[in-house]
């Protein structure tokens, strides 16, 4: 593969899902099997392109694609660097697993093609946010993904879904307006929208006040999108109300690609991290970590419990990334990958339970492992991964984060991280005990096993949970994680690297 071929991969991440979405919206009503097939091949195609991009980044370094052959900083640039590739792999991996799961799961909703149209639109938006190098383009893709997710939360159109979707949509729109306001301030100061160009203008000095103002706006906007604690109120309503595959997408990748990725890209690569921002991020991370887990432990609604755990695990990611040392960033990114795998698996499991029994209340379940052995086993694996039990992937990433925090001599944060981990274990013991172990209740004796495609999707995610630890073996780490860590830890090089790569 030559460099030109590698460059031509870049627009595919937006083009493939968008084409899929368009075709499904016009043809899906007539051909019943088409939405499943197109959805599956579109997400699989993006996943393969993401894996090719890992290879491209290792052979050619940072690549910049100029949309419509207009050279940046005038035209829109799409930047493929280590961090983008990392996020693309995460997004498309989860999207394809979720798509396989939906083939069976979405049968009991009407108009499956509408679901796939919105789903692929959301994937296109997330890929776009990750790949773009232009800050207004980032806002446009962010809104595409957000609007699709508002509609998907309301997909069931029952009382609770609508209420949650309205709340989410109102708060999400206000958060997007804060982001847009921040972009306006940045444009008025730098007179450019290209992120690399903007970074080089801001690095010229005399920009302390504008950066302070815009930092606050972006912390509010993107903090909302990633559900950090003072802005988390929408998440425990919106995530459980969506259909299970969408809960998996929202908790697994949406809050990460729209929230954390954008936050990190802007604070590390455009503004350049300062000690104040770093301590604010760490404080918000620790706060989310502890408050999320305390709220989770008392829940009896399975999906609501999982949603609160998302807040808590996002806290770990932000704590690691906010620390700013290479080890902390490695831990944060690795935990981001792991969390998206095991949290989407847990949501898919809760979907499988809901598909069979029709309930989400833990107290009504019991002994389900006798009837649903595959779901029970994958749920056990995912629970151990999220609680940080040794050979599973969650253990390694939490360990790296805690070691990094101790090395930086922030013992208080290390204590909270360990405490949150113990409480996570406790609440997942509760889930396993009430849902899967114990006596099988009489009313569940007639349920059959889970359909085949749902099993395939859950098993493949469970396998990634088990073997996920190999990503920190040196050779694999140099190819994948270290590339992303480099982009963040040498954040101020972003401008020069990208401007040099424009051809």
């Amino acid at each position, binding site marked *: 593969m030559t460099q030109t071929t590698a460059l031509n991969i870049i627009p595919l991440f937006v083009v493939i899902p968008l084409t899929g979405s368009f075709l499904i919206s016009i043809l899906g009503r007539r051909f019943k099997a088409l939405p499943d097939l197109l959805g599956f091949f579109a997400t699989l195609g993006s996943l393969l392109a993401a894996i090719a991009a890992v290879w491209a980044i290792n052979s050619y370094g940072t690549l910049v694609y100029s949309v419509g052959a207009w050279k940046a900083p005038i035209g829109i640039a799409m930047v493929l660097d280590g961090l983008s590739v990392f996020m693309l792999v995460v997004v498309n991996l989860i999207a394809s697993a979720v798509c396989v799961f939906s083939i069976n799961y979405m049968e009991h909703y009407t108009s499956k093609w509408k679901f796939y149209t919105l789903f692929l639109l959301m994937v296109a938006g997330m890929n776009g946010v990750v790949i773009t190098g232009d800050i207004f383009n980032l806002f446009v893709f962010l809104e595409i993904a957000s*609007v699709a997710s508002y509609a998907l939360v309301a997909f069931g159109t029952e009382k609770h879904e*609508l209420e949650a979707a309205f709340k989410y949509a*109102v708060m999400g729109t206000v958060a997007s307006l804060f982001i847009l306001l921040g972009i*306006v301030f940045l444009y008025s100061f730098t007179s450019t929208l290209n992120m690399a160009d903007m970074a080089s203008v801001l690095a010229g000095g005399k920009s302390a006040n504008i950066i302070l103002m815009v930092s606050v706006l972006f912390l509010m906007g993107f903090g909302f999108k990633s559900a950090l604690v003072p802005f988390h109120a*929408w998440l425990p*309503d919106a995530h459980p109300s969506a259909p299970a595959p969408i809960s998996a997408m929202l908790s697994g990748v949406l809050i990460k690609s729209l929230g954390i990725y954008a936050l990190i890209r802007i604070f590390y690569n455009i503004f350049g991290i300062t000690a104040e921002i770093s301590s604010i991020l760490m404080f918000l991370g620790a706060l989310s970590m502890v408050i999320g887990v305390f709220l989770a432990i008392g829940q009896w609604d399975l999906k609501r419990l999982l949603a609160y755990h998302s807040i808590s695990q996002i806290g770990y990611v932000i704590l690691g990334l906010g620390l700013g040392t290479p080890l902390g960033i490695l831990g944060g990114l690795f935990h981001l990958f792991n969390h998206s795998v095991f949290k989407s698996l847990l949501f898919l499991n809760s979907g499988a339970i809901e598909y069979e029994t029709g309930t989400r209340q833990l107290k009504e379940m019991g002994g389900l492992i006798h009837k649903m052995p595959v779901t029970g086993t994958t749920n056990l694996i995912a629970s151990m991964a999220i609680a940080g039990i040794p050979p599973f992937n969650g253990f390694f990433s939490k360990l790296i984060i805690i070691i990094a925090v101790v090395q930086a001599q922030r013992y208080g944060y290390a204590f909270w991280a360990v405490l949150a981990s113990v409480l996570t274990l406790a609440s997942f013991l509760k889930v396993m005990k009430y849902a899967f172990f114990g006596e099988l209740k009489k009313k569940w004796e007639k349920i059959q096993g889970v359909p085949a495609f749902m099993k395939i999707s859950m098993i493949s995610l469970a396998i990634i949970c088990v073997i996920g630890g190999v990503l920190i073996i040196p050779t694999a780490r140099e190819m994948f994680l270290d590339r992303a860590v480099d982009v963040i830890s040498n954040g101020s090089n972003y401008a020069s690297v990208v401007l040099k790569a424009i051809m």
Partner: protein
Amino acid sequence: MSLYLLCLSLFLIGLYCVLRKRNIIKIIVGIIICEYAVNLFFVLVAYKIGGRSPIHSPEQAIENMVDALPQAVVLTSIVIGLATTALLIGIAMRIYQKYGTFDITKIRELNG
């Protein structure tokens, strides 16, 4: 300067409307006001007093033009706003069918 302050107050009126009103439709109107304030601010940032429209022709010197980029960008932002508003109104209609009211204090079955 007074233009910017008026723009800010428009934004704050919208925000007040979102935060304090109990009727769903009024909340949506508040969001629309907020959106207009941000779009207006974007155009104001690019405006120069006495500036002329940014059309380039061979016989004219390039001087004192207003910045054309925000005007193009704001169009995109308006279209995004349209999509969000349409979706919000769609959800509001469905909520009215299910709950029989637009009052958010009566639509509280979830407690997040």
